[in-house]
């Protein structure tokens, strides 16, 4: 088994870990760079505020799914290098969520807290998105090494298992928002189902082994 894992690691990416880290960092930053470039050159179309909102929301969910792919990659292919950079990936997901919410609060609603609060209470897709935001914020706030020590490993792990719910709520936020074309939200839901399914399958195998 161990030789198998070694082979996988060598074959998959014969690149020093630091290079992989920077490559992934760059990939996560690329959509944001594209967005800023488009905004500065007027490439966001007739309704730029909506375009920014959609773009940041799409990438927040996609990068959250990338983060949730780390464990399945280890369980299925024995890849360990993604595990080492999971914090960086998770913080990028948080960054896109935070920018998505900032755009909604500061630009789309222009700090109309009354309307924002009513949206959160009345519109279930916004309720789901808001709860996902609270979860991912808590995870980002406890993402530093000291937090694990202070909370204790068990409590920290329990808290960070909430990321599954952030994924589920993120997908619900998406599918409850669209008007009629469900294709893209369904693709995201299918990917999430595979990523969570791999974990369930693995846990059942361990349990019945």
């Amino acid at each position, binding site marked *: 088994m161990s030789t198998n894992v070694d082979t996988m690691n060598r074959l998959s990416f014969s690149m020093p870990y630091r290079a992989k880290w920077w490559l992934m960092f760059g990939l996560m930053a690329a959509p944001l760079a594209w967005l800023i470039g488009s905004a500065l050159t007027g490439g966001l179309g007739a*309704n730029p505020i*909506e375009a920014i909102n959609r773009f940041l929301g799409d990438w927040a969910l996609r990068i959250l799914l990338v983060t949730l792919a780390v464990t399945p990659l280890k369980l299925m292919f024995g890849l360990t290098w993604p595990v080492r950079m999971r914090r960086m990936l998770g913080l990028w997901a948080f960054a896109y969520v935070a920018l998505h919410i900032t755009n909604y609060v500061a630009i789309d609603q222009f700090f109309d807290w009354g*309307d924002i609060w009513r949206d959160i209470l009345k519109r*279930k897709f916004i309720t789901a998105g808001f709860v996902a935001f609270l979860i991912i914020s808590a995870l980002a706030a406890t993402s530093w090494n000291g937090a694990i020590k202070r909370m204790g490993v068990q409590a920290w792990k329990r808290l960070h298992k909430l990321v599954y719910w952030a994924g589920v709520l993120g997908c619900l936020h998406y599918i409850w928002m669209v008007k*009629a074309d469900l294709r893209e939200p369904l693709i995201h839901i299918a990917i999430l189902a595979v990523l969570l399914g791999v974990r369930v399958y693995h846990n059942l195998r361990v349990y019945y082994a």
Partner: protein
Amino acid sequence: MLIKIPKSWQLSESDATPENIYKERRRFMKGTAAVITGGIAGSLLGRDAFAAWVRGEKLPNVVQSQYTTDEELTPYDDVTQYNNFYEFGTNKGDPYDNALDFKTKPWTVEIAGEVNNPGIYDVEDLLRPHQMEHRIYRHRCVETWSMVVPWVGVTLADIIKRLEPTSRAKYIAFETLHDPKQMPGQNRNVLQWPYVEGLRMDEAMNPLTLLATGVYGEVMPPQNGAPIRLIIPWKYGFKGIKSIVKITFTEKEPPTSWNVSAPREYGFYANVNPEVSHPRWSQAKERRIGSFFKQPTLMFNGYGEDVAHLYSGMDLAKYF
């Protein structure tokens, strides 16, 4: 009398590149680039550089209408590149990208149902006897964005009178072309195709209701619903059915596409109403395309004086 003798180096008026050709150049280059790219890729789907529709054909004999507004017009490029026309795709830019080769000539409209003059009319014959007008209307989408659009069209009531509906005609139903070869969005069942819409007869006869065939004084581009589409400025945009091929006079309320798709969210009437929320978002405010701040949405989109009487005594929260 002043006689101007042009110097040999002076250009005459006829030498100047007409504005429409100059403006079309970019689009032409884009189309040509697509064809070259398509050719390299060995694709047979390459885009025709000489598209069915080109910008700049002015509509003749159009008069100004009393229906206008001082509000700032939404720029032509926004009006024609930010569209909901699911027959050409569900993204706002899809209709502009996918409708370039849409054939709007020849075009016929079938008139059917409770009417004395049924038949299949060429769209030109249907419109020709009536006065075309420039009308500047506010346009409010159910998604909470809005525009101000200078349409060109004919009062629907004039056409209806000529067609002579019978006394049993209480409603009027409209149908969009169903042609998945030309309308790629129809290959997926995002909505039931063809798109259908309808009005109560008194709504259809209201002088505000327009059968539009142009924007900005020019022939309407396909992505906006050429060759004819409906404009009902006090209703949400989705009531304004595009690329109409059939008009039926009916006794009963006809089905309407978005209502069939999501009856809780979209009613038959779909009057602009800031007090009745869409179940998933408030309709109290709107963002005018090009503006940073949202503005309050007006009851009946600001056309209450002309249309409020149509709904007196009706519970508009129930008949949304």
